[in-house]
């Protein structure tokens, strides 16, 4: 199982991608499966470690939270750009992260960058410190607490 399908998630995602881009038929299912398995095997040569997802439920909750947050921060940033107030101050925040798992970190970086208003700049693996740029920085402590309680806890639960 693990030797034949080293990256089941990658293969499954590729198969879904193939079926999305073509019309569903038996021929495409077979062809897509073959390509997905071959690509998964090739990917195993590049990246042997598979991400280990312990629990799926925290990820689903995270998806909902992030979706809401993106809508809210979209509105906030759009308003800030439009009003162009001088009261807004942007700045850098250094946040110590407890997450160590590479896939969890990748997911966190995607969340933070996709949300308008925060930009992931730099991460130092030995010390686990993340350098974040925040568009509307009122209180650095507030951002630290937000990331720790809102995203990091759920990611720790999901990736263990």
């Amino acid at each position, binding site marked *: 199982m693990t030797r034949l399908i080293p990256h089941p998630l990658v293969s499954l995602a590729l198969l879904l991608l193939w079926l999305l881009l073509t019309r569903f038929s038996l021929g495409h299912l077979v062809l897509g499966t073959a390509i997905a398995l071959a690509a998964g095997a090739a990917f195993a040569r590049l990246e042997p470690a598979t991400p280990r997802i312990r629990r799926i439920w925290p990820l689903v909750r995270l998806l909902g939270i992030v979706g809401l947050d*993106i809508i809210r921060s979209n509105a906030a940033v759009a308003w800030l750009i439009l009003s162009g107030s001088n009261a807004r101050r942007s700045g850098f925040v250094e946040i110590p992260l407890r997450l160590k798992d590479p896939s969890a970190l990748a997911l966190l970086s*995607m969340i933070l960058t996709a949300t308008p208003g925060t930009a992931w700049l730099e991460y130092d693996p030995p010390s686990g410190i993340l350098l974040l740029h925040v568009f509307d920085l009122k209180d650095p402590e507030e951002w630290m607490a937000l990331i720790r309680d809102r995203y990091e806890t759920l990611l720790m639960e999901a990736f263990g």
Partner: protein
Amino acid sequence: MTVLQGLPLWLALLVALLLVVGSTLTLLGAFGLVRLRSFYDRIHAPTLGTSWGAAAILLASIFTWSWLEGRAVVHELVVGILLMCTTPVTLMLLGRTALHRNRRAGVEGVPRSLKR
């Protein structure tokens, strides 16, 4: 005349709303790109277009084509997922590039390297 005229009224209104919201958000993002003063501020601007700006327009496209062809046309999702995964990579690399170049040039107000 557009294909949108072939839609029932409620769907046409929904698609029109999504198009207006999406393009306005993208426009605001690009406007911010011109207007904001520092590079680190400007790096936030395009995310308006790549998050809900793109999502709204892709949803409008999905709804229209699904109705017209009478089946679920969801291949726009591929572009959406691609954008979701690739924009962070580009922006992160650009942010690190800017930090790196600013530090080398000795610009004031840039945080020092995390490597201690």
